[in-house]
């Protein structure tokens, strides 16, 4: 097993000013993409830039609850709420892997691609997957992200379950290369 290193970390914290997305997206693209996807692509691209990597060997994303805004648009239409129209785009962009797939399409990343969605464990699982594959020597680099959006309805449900509602926009780059690393990432074995 090889050691695994952290090479870059980019995060948009709650309350941080919204970055200028114009450098990344055309007006048309920006219109099609929700805030979650824009923040995801922006943090991923910043982290890769920092690590000096164009196309990572793997794109692995954690999302605790997925693309819930689009799910709610589609659910509203399904339930006849507010005469919302049933749009294929909302359905297409409601699946949890919308984020990892969009990042892969933009990067032309044909390598390993996965999405974990398991409440507070999502990012940890994504990190463990990347760590394991680099340690095994299957891949050399991985982009790992943690992206979540909140809606009033989901926040209400989580609070009722004693879970703090949180948005996430975090991207890190892992690599087998010790040169220029921020730190080594120890084994993530979960118990």
């Amino acid at each position: 097993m090889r050691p695994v290193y952290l090479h870059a970390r980019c995060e948009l914290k709650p309350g941080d000013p919204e970055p200028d997305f114009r450098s990344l997206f055309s007006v048309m693209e920006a219109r099609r993409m929700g805030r979650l996807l824009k923040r995801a692509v922006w943090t991923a691209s910043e982290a890769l830039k920092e690590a000096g990597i164009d196309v990572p060997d793997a794109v692995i994303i954690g999302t605790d609850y997925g693309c819930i805004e689009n799910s709610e648009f589609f659910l509203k239409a399904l339930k006849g709420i507010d005469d919302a129209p049933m749009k294929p785009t909302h359905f297409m962009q409601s699946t949890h892997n919308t984020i990892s797939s969009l990042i892969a399409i933009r990067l032309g990343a044909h390598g390993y691609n996965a999405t974990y969605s398991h409440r507070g464990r999502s990012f940890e699982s994504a990190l463990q997957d990347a760590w394991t594959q680099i340690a095994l020597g299957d891949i050399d680099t991985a982009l790992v992200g943690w992206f979540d959006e909140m809606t009033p309805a989901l926040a209400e449900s989580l609070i009722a379950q004693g879970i703090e509602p949180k948005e996430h926009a975090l991207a890190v780059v892992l690599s087998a290369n010790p040169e220029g690393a921020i730190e080594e990432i120890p084994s993530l074995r979960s118990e």
Partner: protein
Amino acid sequence: MDTLIHITGAGVVSAVGCGQGETLDALRRGRSGIGPVRFLRTAEKTFLVGEVPLSNEEMAARCGASPDLSRTSLMGILALREALTEAGLPDLTGIPLISGTTVGGMDKTEQTFPAYSPLHDCGASTDAIAAHFGGAPFATTLSTACSSAANAVIFGANLIRSGQADIVAVGGSESLSDFHLHGFGSLMILDTAPCRPFDATRAGLNLGEGAAFLILESDASVRRRGAASLAVLSGFGNACDAFHQTASSENGEGAFLAMQKALRMAGLRPEDIDYVNAHGTGTPNNDASESAALRRVFGDALPPISSTKAFTGHTTSASGSIEAVFCLLALREGFIPAQLNWTTADPACIVPSLGGPASLKHILCNAFGFGGNDSSLLISR
């Protein structure tokens, strides 16, 4: 593969039945489980579906779980129970549970929306399965749309390869929901007639549902426990088409790379493959794209290929593990499941196998998802 990974247990629930016995009988007789909607709460009755032939209450009664769980969790419990029993394991003590789903508890939220059900999310549906078996040391959920369960198998295998686990329970579960029935409907990829994978007249898929779990185990653990090895996972591949959010590329790049990776990992040549259980949804786009990928991998010497989705419908997130269990049965019993509903060749597609007895050693099992999440598992005797 650098490490021997045994499959020591399997459990399956789909439209063709509950358990390996009913499943094998249906696969051998060519009996499809696709029909009109019986259990799903929906106003959309136009499309045929592959429903598990049990109500939530019947499933709950069979496994002693609460009927208030999501259907995804109930089907998952039934499948995992069979897998653990076959492997001779009483529960999940010391065994990580890695499941795949996308729908999760959407069926529950459909009843409470605009409020969410606390069982809504993917993680909640996996946690409910783990809780039924006494809890797992850790549980996590892959959600890569229709390849979720295949990717759960891959992550579990990597935990064993890296020495992070000796035994893992891997697979996936997905119930039908009004949400994705309408969603696939809005994409115009559902057929009102039984789906016809690789046929020139194919016009879309039939949505299905179900669950399947495998017990993967290291060689040392198999020896220590004296467990029986049903087969080995000799390779796998995960690649991304990186082409479009829902459509597949014309040359099947993601599918090609996934199959190629699996072969390379197993140290096998294309001619070593005795059967391919294709993703074969029955949509014009998937089947043409997958055929292009198959031709790139195998050239003119295509092995027998069939899609069992004409039996079960497209069981979406669970399809990877459900079809892996079908492959295990085919390997053990020595037969190729027939391509049902195929009559007319399409130059853009491979000509599928009409099934029959066969001595099988190596089987490739494909599962591709929205977002170009393409995975391939290689199961060997």
